Each structure stands twice: as C-alpha cells, then as structure tokens.
C-alpha cells in the first residue's frame, strides 16, 4: 500500500453512519515504523527524481534485491493501486481508464487504476491525484510475469505510453511440480543480462559485496515475515489475520531493506507478547479459524472484517501474503525462487499442496475463496482447487464475488449470506467433533 491500510481506518471510513464509533485502538509501534517506511519510500523517490536520478516502477514479485543493490528508487504500481482502492479513491481512475483511455472493463483493476494514473502523470488525463501524485513518473520499468501475464501487457502499454524501457525477467509458468533446470538457466541468464543493462541505463555499478549484504537482509526479512505468519498457529491466534495484510508493503516494496527488518522484528515481538499474555488483537473471541484464498478485497476490507468478526471468524492463514517469503542464497537460487514464488505461476498440484500444508498447520476449519474479478489466473482453476482441497482436508468452503480494486464487483449481501452458510457447516462440524 502506498500508505498502510489498517482495518481500523477502513472501518472508520465505512462506518460514518454508525451511531457511536468505538475509540480507535492505538497503533502498535510496528505499524508506526511501517508508516515511516512507506513515507520514506515515496519521499526518497521524489527526492531522487528532483536530483535527476532515474526512478523505476516494478512488478511486485520482481527480484527487488537487484534494484536495492544498485541503490535505485523503485515504486510498486500494484501496491499503490491497492492503496487507492482501499481508500475508496479508485472510481475516477476506473472511469477514466474505461472511458477516454478506451480500455475494457474486463481488465485487472490494479492495471486500470495505474494506467489512468500514469496518463495523468503523462499529462494525457485530467484525473486529479488523491495523493498529490506521489507515485512519481518512472524512467524505467522492472517486470516479471510470475504473478500473471496481464502484468506483461500492462507494462508494455506503460512503456509505449511514456516511452521508457522495460527490464524484463520472464519467469515462465510451471506446469511441472518443480522449476525445471532449463527454466533456471534461462532465468539466470536474464538476471545477468538485466543487471548489465540496468547498470548501463542508470549509470550505477554492481557491487557483489553489497548484493551479498542485501541478500542476507532479504533472507532475514523473509524469515521474519514467515515467522510472523507462522505464529498464527497459536490458539487463539495472537492477532487478527487481516492485520498481516497491512504489513505486506514491508515485503513487497522493501524486502531488501533493514527498515523492514526493524518493522518485522517489532511485529514479531508484539505477536510474541500477545502469546505470552494470552491476548489477541482480534477484537472478539475466536470461534472459527479459516484460511483466505486470493488477494484481499481491498475496497471492502472493513465489511469483510466486520462480517467475519460477527461470527468470531479469524483468518489465520492466507495464500497470498506468503508469496513474498522468498528464500535463496545465490543468483541461481534467486532464479529458482522467483520462478516458484507465486502460486499463480505454479501448477494446481503445487498450489493444492501449499494450501493443504497451511490448513493443517493452522488447524483451519474452513476456507474463503475470493473470486477476484480482476484476476483470471487466480479464478480460472479455483473451482478444481476448491473441490480437491475440500475433499482432502474434509473442511467446508465458501466463495464470494469481489475484486482487488474495483468496488463495483462486490455485494455485501452475497458476502454475508455466503459466510453465514459457511458458519452453519463449520458449527455442525465443530459440534460433531465435540460429540465424538
């Protein structure tokens, strides 16, 4: 997110008509550190631009460590679009994109928001920036397609629109259960070439010692992120699962930075403190533990949370955030890890295997699938995945129609009804279990 989105701030904006809003819980120190980090990201990019340095935009699962080693300032369109959507500011961008810019309504809403934002930066659109245009105009693009193929097309268009180069690592879809060695060789060759090309373009020099250091920081951060997620296996879970979504910017935008280490160490300490004290930030008693499949429904995060809270449902496992826990220890390892990071780039067996592991580890009683209208790669095999996981895990699921950034693709009534149905089955299962 361009600014951290907390469940509290979302709830506050959506609940304006509520009679007596509860006083806000003070933000934990980890969140304050995250806010500082996010502000620094945008401010540093702005200052770099002022100094005449080249600033880039990057796909969210690009090997961020490369740019970090070169000391480049990079911003993340997917993250920024999510922030715009979560703050209910997406509408003018969506209208502009589907209207004057001529794009189809069918496309990814992250892309639509960003393509319109980029048009405004390029003086081709009159949409006003809700954030002062802090997503400064890029001089180059860093692209990987491990998340989806739409990113490739989206960045092609940005490149043409702003006449800037794309530095691309094609990570290749994995129909096999592993990353084939020929993929590793292809991706490694691209990484080597990209480093050379990026140095030539930006005038920066590659420093292998610096890379080793960044890699260690990145590995430490991946460990801390994974650990924070893992601590959700305690019962009751020490925090509300949706809160972890808020910390994703530390991994998405700042994976190779020590500032993320500080944020995540603090987050881990806060979670451990809750475990020690038997407390939780989840505001009601944890009745049910579920996993969440898919990207957050950012425009309705507060409604999702309120509905789940009503039934004491805590989201203790998510398929999404863990995509950024990327582990490796050299450039070959980096090539392999980035090919295998996102389950969007992996076959259904790998996806099902990872989901089953999480359901078991976190003792989930159900799964909620977000049928995200923006994301065909997540939706077009979801039904088969649901069938297999439900059968193997023996737990119920509910799916709902939503969108990661387009507020028009969601129905509060549908979400509530689906969750109600899920709760009924989970309650029956719980009762049957208790009665032996």
């Amino acid at each position: 997110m361009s600014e951290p989105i907390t469940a509290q701030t979302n709830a506050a904006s959506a609940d304006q008509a509520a009679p007596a809003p509860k006083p806000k819980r003070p933000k934990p120190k980890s969140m304050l550190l995250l806010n500082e980090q996010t502000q620094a990201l945008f401010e540093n990019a702005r200052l770099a631009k002022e100094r005449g340095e080249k600033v880039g935009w990057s796909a969210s699962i690009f090997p961020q460590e490369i740019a970090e080693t070169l000391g480049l300032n990079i911003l993340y369109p997917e993250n920024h679009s999510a922030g715009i959507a979560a703050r209910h500011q997406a509408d003018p961008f969506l209208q502009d994109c589907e209207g004057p810019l001529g794009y189809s309504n069918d496309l990814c809403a992250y892309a639509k928001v960003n393509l319109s934002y980029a048009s405004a930066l390029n003086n081709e659109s009159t949409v006003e920036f809700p954030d002062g245009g802090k997503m400064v105009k890029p001089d180059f693009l860093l692209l990987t397609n491990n998340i989806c193929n739409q990113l490739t097309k989206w960045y092609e268009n940005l490149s043409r629109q702003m006449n800037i180069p794309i530095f691309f690592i094609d990570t290749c879809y994995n129909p096999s259960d592993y990353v084939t060695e020929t993929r590793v060789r292809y991706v490694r060759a691209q990484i080597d070439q990209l480093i050379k090309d990026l140095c030539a373009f930006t005038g920066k020099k590659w420093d292998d010692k610096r890379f080793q250091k960044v890699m260690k920081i990145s590995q430490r951060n991946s460990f801390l992120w994974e650990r924070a997620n893992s601590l959700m296996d305690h019962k009751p879970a020490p925090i509300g699962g949706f809160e972890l979504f808020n910390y994703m910017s530390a991994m998405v935008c700042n994976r190779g930075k020590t500032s993320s280490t500080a944020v995540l160490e603090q987050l881990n300490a806060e979670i451990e403190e809750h475990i020690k004290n038997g407390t939780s930030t989840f505001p009601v008693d944890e009745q049910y533990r579920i996993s969440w499949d898919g990207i957050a429904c950012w425009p309705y995060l507060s409604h999702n949370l309120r509905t789940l809270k009503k039934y004491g449902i805590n989201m203790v496992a998510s398929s999404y955030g863990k995509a950024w826990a990327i582990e490796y220890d050299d450039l070959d390892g980096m090539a392999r890890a980035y090919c295998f990071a996102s389950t969007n780039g992996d076959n259904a067996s790998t996806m099902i295997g990872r989901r089953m592991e999480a359901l078991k580890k976190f003792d989930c009683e159900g799964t909620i699938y977000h049928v995200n209208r923006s994301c065909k790669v997540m939706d077009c095999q979801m039904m088969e995945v649901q069938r297999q996981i439900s059968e193997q895990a023996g737990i119920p699921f509910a799916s709902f129609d939503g969108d990661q950034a387009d507020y028009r693709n969601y129905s509060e009534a549908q979400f509530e009804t689906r969750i109600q149905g899920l709760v009924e089955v989970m309650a029956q299962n719980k009762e049957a279990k208790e009665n032996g």
Partner: protein
Amino acid sequence: MADLKNNLSVLAEAYGNPRARLDYYLGQGKKVIGCFPPYTPEELVHASGMIPMGLWGGQTELMRAKSYLPAFACPIMQSDMEFGLSGAYRGLSAVIIPALCDTLRCMTQNWRFGVPGIPMIPIVYPQNRRSPASVDYLISEYESVLTMLSTITGQMMNEQALCRSIEIYNEHNAVMREFAQTANEHLDIVTPRVRHAVMKSAFFYEKSEHSAIVREIIAELKKLPAYAHPGKKVVLAGIMCEPDELLGIFEENDFAVVGDDLAQESRQYRTDTPAKGGGSLRRLALQWNCRTGCSLIHEDGKPRGEMLASLCRLSGASGVISCMMKFCDPEEYDQPYYEGDLRSAGFPCLSIEIDQQNTSYEQARTRIETFREML
C-alpha cells in the same frame, strides 16, 4: 469453375464438421493430437507421424464447463472444456496446451484433472525473446513435448522427419499467404464466409493435403478475370471472427475481407521457420523469436497498429474491424493502441464483440451498418 466450387465446398464441409475429419483420420489408423490455440508446435506432432488438429471451440451449450471456469473466462476455452468433458473430443490421443495467457495457464490444469482420458501436454513459450537464452529454453520445451508425444507413438521422432515437416509447414504458410492475396481479386467468389472456411479448414487437415487443395483453388481463381468489388473493403483484427452468422452480416453490407491479423487465420502464417540457423528444433525456436505484432507475445513498442495500417494500404482496405474476443485480456490491452494508431493513419476502426455462444447479432448488425455508412 466446377473444380473451384468443388474444392471450396470440400473445405467448407471440413470446416463445418471437424468431427468427420477426426473420424476420417482415426479410420485410417492415424493418431490425432488436439492443438489448443494458438501457436501449438504442430510440426512436432506432424514429424511424429500424427495428425495435429486445431481445437478452437465452437457453438455449444455450456453445462459441464461451468464447474471449471467462471463466466468471465474466454469463450474458446469454455467450449473446448465443454467438448472435452462431454466426450466430443473422444479419439484424440492427447492435447497440447500452450500457456500463453492467464486462462491458458489454468486450462492446462483444468484439462489435466477434468479430462484425464485425453492426456495434456503443456508448452510454455519464452516471452523475453531478446534474451539469447530463450532459444535454448524453448528447445528444451519442444524436447519435453516430443518426449510426451513419443509415449503415444512408441517411436522417437527423427531429424529428417522434422526437417520435412518444417518444409511442409513453410509451404503451407506460403500457400495460405498466396490464397489471401489472390482472393482479393475475386471477392465475388471469396466472400467473408468462404475466406474464413478456407482459412479455418486448415486446422482439420494434414497440412500437405490442405496445401494441395488450396493450391488448386488459387490456380482456378487465377484463371478467372479479376472482379471489381463494389462495396467496402476491410481488414479484420483480433483472435478470430466467427460464427458464420456474423460473417453473413458483413456480406449483407457488401463488406469484403481483404486482409487480417487474426490469430486463427493469417497471423500464424506470417512467419516462416528459417531455412538455416542450426538443427530443426533450433530453427523452430528461431521462428518463435521472429514472430511480431501478436498480442500473446511480448514485444516492445506495440507495433500492431502500424502493421495493420500498412496492411490496409497494401490491400486497399478503407478500415479495420476489431474482432474483440470476449474476455481476452491480451487483445484488450492492445486495442486502445492499435485503434489509436489506425485512426492517426486515417483508417477508421469498428470494434465488435466475438463470442461463439452468442445467439443474437442485432447489435452487431446495427454497428456494422453504421460503420458502412461512415466509411
């Protein structure tokens, strides 16, 4: 003229009844491999002694496919899945699925679990074609496909066979390009529906057989005097332009199709496999790296608009009909740019939605009529 009519009707029949073509080859004791669109490496199937047959969906009621794909998935994939689940593709020894878009990625998995009786062979083409390593990577993908094909035939493909298949495919490319050009002098005979039938029928023939028929058609056409088409001439852009009801509306409005960049038609024939460059697998990989102006292949600069404008100039077309495959995101990203480039070049563009399951074309008819008046 009798031969011409007969040949055109043979191809129209094949186009109208692919199942009969499948049964014909099965009856000959041939094995047939289903080829999902687009760019399936048919040469590998051909060189393995089997018949590659295109799977481009069709008109059907979607029932079983709804258990695998959401309503906003590509209509070709929806109907391919339906045909797979319903048994319409019974007899195929395997299918090859190129994971060229997000929906195709998922189709590899849906097919694998949903239609276990017809094995799925995936291929993942490289998208960073500026990287020299993409060639070796693609060769390894081809080798994986060949390994899986050899489990069906029990035989290993050899270099000589692949060289011969590449020749046959290059010849077919040339024949189809010549047909498209010759047809433009005979638009009274090669109407939009006839042109489409000739183009699409290629997916249901062994390619040297198809080349032979189309060569005869070209020869017969060349014997006839050139025809001056009184109506408007257009170029088609997109993945495909179906079904016949839609093409019939072009004819009602005196539109002639004089060129296309459709993935199902001319786009596949634009790029030959180079005669030199190494072994046959390497040459095939080099062909991939030479393809240009396709929404499904990453390329800098978005050259498609200029390519379409140039095609209009060469063919005498006065505009472009953008055949937007419903829910096809790669095409949807290209559309604003190529349409903008066409407008800048002075060529108007009409966008119509393509959905094989559509049953009403009134809206399209009105739009096409308006476009005719505008031109």
